């Protein structure tokens, strides 16, 4: 272990034990009771998001240019006839000379595609998400309606060739909900845990230990050590509640009569449980945890740096509001990104360092690309280092030099 890491570990160890070995840590551990209320709010948000994503579903027809107007007109008539209860919005595209692959269209990102129809209207090829789906039958009706409209006499029945999508089977809406869930969970954890870093240097400044630390070890290792100490507390907190939840679940499973469970329908698989994030459950859960750590380190580093400049407890208290607003801002940005994966807003949220962990966690739910996460983690780590570096510079130039905390930038006026 290098001296830098060793120093960091010494500071982290001290901070971790100083927090955990106190009675107030028990109160801290029980704080998640508030989480239940917040979870309800989050659940509502996810539900609304899923609803909105469902509204973004579509059926696609790829037709000759001459058929486009007729298809749209027929769609309007049919929807009127069905009382406005058509399967999803119709997206009519002009066939390209090179040919269109309905499977590719069906798996385009950004919307749920229930069915795609290509080829001649009399004998179309229809690719549908679920075999015998309403969307597929609707496309047959649509083709018949166009042919009937054109023909003078009787029209032979349409002879469709149906195929179902075999891959990418989980609904985009469900995956987006998972993405939002990841964003919300990481936000909630960082809101509860990362904000505390703002006051973590207050102790050293108050009891003057900071000068001993500054003389003994690089300030970068002090800042990083404090951050990692707090992260250790956060991970312990999460592990505690996961263990409690698992234990509670096990106890419940052994206490409840199986017949009662069966009667309540618990034996049936829940649809959401069957859904799979784009990257798979194992990777998704793992990467979400890693992104929580990155979110904690990134936001924690900012709060630590800002808090280090505060001269009094009152200033630290005053900082809690802008810090919460900053976190909510990152949550909002990432939530918006989760509802429109692949869009410019999502790209921005993925690149902007302080929303990147949230947005990338959401991306892991809807995009199966995995290598991009390595890139994102490297980018985020770079920003953690940059924030720590700047925080230390500000601290050395301002607080340690005895200048007014917030006026580290003030130009020196020599006599």
């Amino acid at each position, binding site marked *: 272990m290098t001296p830098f890491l060793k*120093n960091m570990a010494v500071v982290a160890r001290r901070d971790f034990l*100083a927090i955990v070995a106190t009675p107030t840590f028990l109160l801290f551990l029980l704080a998640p009771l508030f989480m239940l209320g917040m979870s309800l709010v989050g659940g509502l948000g996810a539900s609304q998001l899923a609803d909105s994503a469902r509204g973004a579903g579509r059926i696609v027809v790829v037709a000759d240019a001459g058929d486009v107007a007729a298809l749209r007109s027929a769609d309007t008539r049919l929807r009127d006839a069905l009382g406005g209860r058509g399967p999803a919005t119709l997206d009519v595209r002009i066939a390209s000379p090179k040919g269109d692959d309905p499977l590719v269209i069906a798996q385009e990102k950004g919307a749920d595609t229930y069915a795609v129809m290509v080829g001649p209207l009399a004998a179309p090829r229809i690719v549908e998400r679920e075999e015998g789906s309403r969307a597929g039958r609707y496309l047959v009706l649509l083709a018949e309606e166009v042919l009937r409209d054109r023909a003078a006499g009787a029209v032979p029945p349409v002879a469709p060739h149906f195929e179902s999508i075999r891959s990418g089977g989980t609904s985009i809406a469900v995956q987006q909900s998972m993405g939002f869930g990841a964003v919300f969970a990481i936000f909630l954890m960082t809101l509860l845990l990362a904000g505390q870093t703002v006051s973590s240097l207050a*102790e050293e400044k108050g*009891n003057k230990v900071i*000068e*001993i630390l500054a003389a003994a*070890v690089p300030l970068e290792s002090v800042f990083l050590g404090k951050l990692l100490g707090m992260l250790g507390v956060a991970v312990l907190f999460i592990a505690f509640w996961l263990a409690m939840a698992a234990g509670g679940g096990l106890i419940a499973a052994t206490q409840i009569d199986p017949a009662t469970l069966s009667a309540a329908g618990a034996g049936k698989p829940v649809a959401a449980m069957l859904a799979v994030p784009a990257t798979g459950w194992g990777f998704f859960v793992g990467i979400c945890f890693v992104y929580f750590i990155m979110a904690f380190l990134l936001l924690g580093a900012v709060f630590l740096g800002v808090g280090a400049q505060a001269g009094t407890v009152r200033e630290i208290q005053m900082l809690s509001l802008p810090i919460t607003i900053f976190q909510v801002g990152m949550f909002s940005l990432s939530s918006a990104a989760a509802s429109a994966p692949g869009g410019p807003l999502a790209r921005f949220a993925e690149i902007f360092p302080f929303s990147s962990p949230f947005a990338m966690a959401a991306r892991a739910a809807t995009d199966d690309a995995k290598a991009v996460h390595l890139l994102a983690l490297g980018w985020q780590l770079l920003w953690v280092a940059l924030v720590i570096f700047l925080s230390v510079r500000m601290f050395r130039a301002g607080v340690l030099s005895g200048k007014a905390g917030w006026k580290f930038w003030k130009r020196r006026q020599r006599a």
Partner: protein
Amino acid sequence: MRADSASGDQRLTDYCVEARGLTKYFDEFKAVDHVDLEVPVGSIYGVLGPNGAGKTTSLRMTLGIIDPDEGTSRLFGSHKPQSVRHRIGYLPEERGLYPGMKAREAIAFMGALRGLDWGEGRRRAATFMAELGLERVIDEKIRKMSKGMAQMVQLIGSIVHAPDLIVLDEPFSGLDPVNQERLETLVRRERDRGATILFSTHVMAHAERLCDRLAIIARSQRRFEGTVDEARALLPMQVRYAPRTGADDGVIAALLPADAQRRGDAWHFAIDDAGVEPLLARITASGHGVAGLSIARPGLHDAFVHIVRQVDAGFAADAAEEAAAEASA
């Protein structure tokens, strides 16, 4: 000669600390003005000065805790204080310990910061505490200790890793006489072990007893550098003379130097380079005799006060000159 070959920027040197032209501004105030410090390896070096003279800021710049606005500093020949941190022990002026920590843990923690193994730190903590008669509080939390005890704990923490350079900023303040004596013993013992000790103080008695060399800082600048004897030699010998006869003050004063002052039944004055013999000849010839006579070299305290007063007088004269110039303008 010492050098650490681990770092490329280090060079052989006879000095543990070499600071050149250290200057620091706090807004408009020039807290330290081109101060030089050269601390020989293995010595006890005192930085003396009145309150606010710039001692602490100079030490902090030397250790790399704050950056100087001008000047350079080398520790063990290295421009990078961080590269030799493990060889340094530091007791800051503002004492700081985690109140919730036990003494043993606090000492081990401070040692661990300088690279000492935790277990070894705890073991050495017990040894040091026993030597200083503090073994009964080794497992007490810092918050339960008296200020003096906590200060001793912090002092042990700053030397527990057996550093080559020990920097103590006002180490004696806040200690009772018994603990001051213990601290002096500890400082000498560390020097005998081979460590270099650099400490600041404004209490001359400690400096006089401990220092091999010293620097006096006043009004942000170094005003003196040398040994204690060299500092004392700045002032002439002081004479106390009591005449045997009850002669008039005017008659006696005529025999003595112009600055002679009567306090009680004795006259006090300094003697010049000519020495005391011509004076004794005059007194003998006058017939006033000698009821009492003592000749003493001034102490460090007197030398310090003399230097500081000279500096203050210079500042007052400059200020008066500036005021007169402004008034005439």
